[in-house]
């Protein structure tokens, strides 16, 4: 830890000496997010040039955001965990488990036609509960986050299979479908949900004591502890928050696919981590932005769309994604050495 710290100091000092106003802007938060915006715009230009109207069509652009919305919501929660110095590999599994729990036939009966809110609450409850288990095991059991959430990844998936007996539950709740598959002001409910979660996430990270504690713990756990912050409790809350966003994502996948199954969210954690890291959040914690994560999610989904429009298969997409992740992290290390935010 202290080596990391002294390395940060040296970087910061080096940056300070060489800082022209322009360099400051580019190494600051605006600059880093500006880089992501430029990358996104470049992708859009490539899309427009190669696929023409098929890409620039408003419906296509909305499709990109709609497809980004589920992994986007999960990435917001994950951003908090990673800024706080942790990792959550279980988000995809927990989403699958929550989707199964909420769409269970009995639950749907219980919810009856008008009270679909019961389903929503169950999805959120299962997500939060799984997150709390992660958090308690990590914070109070002193289990490494990677292992604890890897165990949850496997365990939650298994539990989802047990509960569902590997069946798929079709959501026949008209009220649920009407609300979550509907649109408001011409924009899908899913996109609104993503937007709301992102805005709330931004406010919580930047404007509340919860966000400040998150940055403090990720930046220097020992300093935060010695300053009187209850690090264990806050760490638990961080994983519960990640569980909550996985629960929200479960509601969204139920709406999009109108079914709940244990296979929802397989490998979703990898997409989410990639988006968060490409968005400029340091994997060692202490620094990161919600805006960056949103841009990271949009970049990956736009890329997929551009490739699909050009009839390139998913193998090519994956290779490109891998390259993007490495390049983004390299750029992060070279240029993103300024203060956070």
């Amino acid at each position, binding site marked *: 830890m202290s080596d990391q710290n*002294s390395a940060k*100091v040296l970087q910061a000092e080096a940056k300070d000496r060489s800082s022209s106003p322009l360099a400051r802007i580019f190494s600051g938060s605006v600059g880093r997010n500006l880089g992501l915006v430029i990358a996104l715009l470049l992708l859009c230009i490539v899309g427009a040039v190669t696929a023409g109207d098929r890409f620039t069509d408003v419906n296509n652009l909305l499709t990109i955001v709609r497809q980004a919305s589920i992994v986007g919501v999960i990435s917001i929660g994950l951003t908090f965990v990673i800024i706080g110095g942790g990792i959550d590999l279980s988000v995809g599994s927990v989403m699958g488990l929550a989707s199964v729990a909420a769409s269970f036939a009995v639950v749907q009966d219980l919810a009856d036609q008008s009270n679909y809110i019961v389903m929503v609450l169950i999805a959120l409850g299962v997500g939060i509960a799984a997150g709390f288990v992660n958090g308690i095991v990590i914070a109070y059991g002193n289990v490494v986050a990677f292992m604890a959430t890897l165990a949850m990844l496997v365990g939650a998936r298994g539990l989802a299979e047990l509960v569902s007996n590997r069946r798929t539950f079709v959501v026949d709740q008209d009220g649920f479908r009407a609300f979550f598959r509907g649109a408001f002001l011409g924009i899908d409910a899913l996109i609104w949900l993503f937007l709301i979660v992102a805005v709330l996430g931004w406010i919580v990270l930047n404007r509340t004591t919860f966000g*400040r504690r998150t940055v403090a713990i990720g930046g220097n756990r020992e300093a935060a502890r010695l*300053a009187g912050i209850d690090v264990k409790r806050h760490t638990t809350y961080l994983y519960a928050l990640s569980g909550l966003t996985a629960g929200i994502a479960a509601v969204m996948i139920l709406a999009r696919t109108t079914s709940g199954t244990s296979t929802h969210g397989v490998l979703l954690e990898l997409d989410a981590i990639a988006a968060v890291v490409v968005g400029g959040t340091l994997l060692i914690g202490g620094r990161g932005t919600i805006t960056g994560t949103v841009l990271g999610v949009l970049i990956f989904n736009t890329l997929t769309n551009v490739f699909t429009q050009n009839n390139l298969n998913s193998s090519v997409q994956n290779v490109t994604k891998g390259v993007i992740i490495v390049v983004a992290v390299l750029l992060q290390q070279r240029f993103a050495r300024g203060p956070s935010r």
Partner: protein
Amino acid sequence: MVSGDHPIPLLRASGITKSFSGVQALRGVDLEIVPGEVHCVLGQNGAGKSTLIKVLAGAHQPDGGELLWNGEPMTISDPVAALKLGIATMYQELDVVDGLTIAENIFLGHELANAGMLRAGEANRRARELLQRLGHSDLSPNREVGSLSAANKQIVSMARALSHDVKLLIMDEPSAVLDSEEVTKLFRVVEDLTAGGIAIVYISHRLEEIRRIGDRITVLKDGRSTASNLPVADTPTPDLIRLMTGRTVENVFPPAAPIAPDAPELLRVDGLGTRGLFEGVSFSVRAGEVVGLAGLVGSGRSEILETIYGARRSTSGSVTVDGRMLRRGSVRDAVRAGIGLSPEERKSQGLLLGEPIYRNVTLSTFSRFARSGFLDERKERSVAREQIEALDLRPADPDRPASTLSGGNQQKILLGRWLVHGTKVLLLDEPTRGVDVGARAEIYALIRRLQEQGTAILLVSSEIEEVLGLADRVLVVAEGRVLAITDAKDIDEHAVLDLVMKGTAA
């Protein structure tokens, strides 16, 4: 065994300097090592001993000065180059790998192999020979190192050093983890090695050990060699202590106002202990009083501070702040009761380096300024600005990241953190480490000001003169026990060192 005017010394260092990001660790060290001698390097904590070792071992490159090996100028580019020359080092932190066997540890980095296939049998045979040479034929080369005692790990570390063709062996406080019988054994090995022409650099602060095995001494103080290559036999102990402590920088401690006779007792520590670290610590600090803990690194002084603060859980005794008994092991409870800690390691324990000054200042108070969870950054900035002004913190820009500040100004952030709301008891662990002379004087003045405002202060410092200069009363600590509690004016630096060294030897 050694003649002072050996024709060509094995190693001669002159004017070695080294600094780390602005902190001068070595300011000019001279020493000369001849084959077959035990050359002791003596110095207080922070005098530069460890840096010197790392320069000789190739782990650090010196900024200036000259190294001669057998009369030839040379640079030691890395630890492998040092080993090739024949310089092996046994570090204080045992650098063995617990999961490997003794033999595997000994040949770590230069495994015996044929075309990539390990020759385990040969390694075991040679490991057994080395262990025998060190008088430890009882250790099996196949034993896993993790199951060994600290003393035996040291033997493994030494066997590893000897597995190279070594001409110079550097031993960093080898006796720190040994009991007296093991120390005797170690000394026999040392005599054996020097009889074979190997030179030994022996780091220790136990004077009686140096008397027993040392041939010559080099004394370090504040990164300088205050005396080089003195024959041990002709140098009386008081001279050595004066060389270790002799002041190179005159520190001026501002006078303290007398404590009011009716000053309330703000901190009371009763029979406090943490199993394995320290025990039976009892004392109290009154409002406006500075109590100092004097002792060496590892004496338990920092641990005592951290336990009072709740950062470590005590196993016995109690801590009372202004009449309120604290919960064991709860920093939050301690902070709520009005204790503040400025930790020993500023960077790793105190600061969020990437975050701006104001957020570092308000790290322990930001939630008090918040309204229903929402931060009040304007209030935080203005509070930080008050502290910046009161502490004369430079640059006076609350939005600068903490990493861009000098050591002294970083320290002021940590002090400011606890001044934001009236802290009753302030625990200061090494408040002037890595701080330049000017900022030091400011920190001293600040301590006095806090004292006048009625804060109770508990101070730990490696620099005994600092403890004596600032404190009203002093607790001398060694090996987890309080050896003496006296008025600071009734004791001097020599007496403290004397007590500590006797206490450590016992």
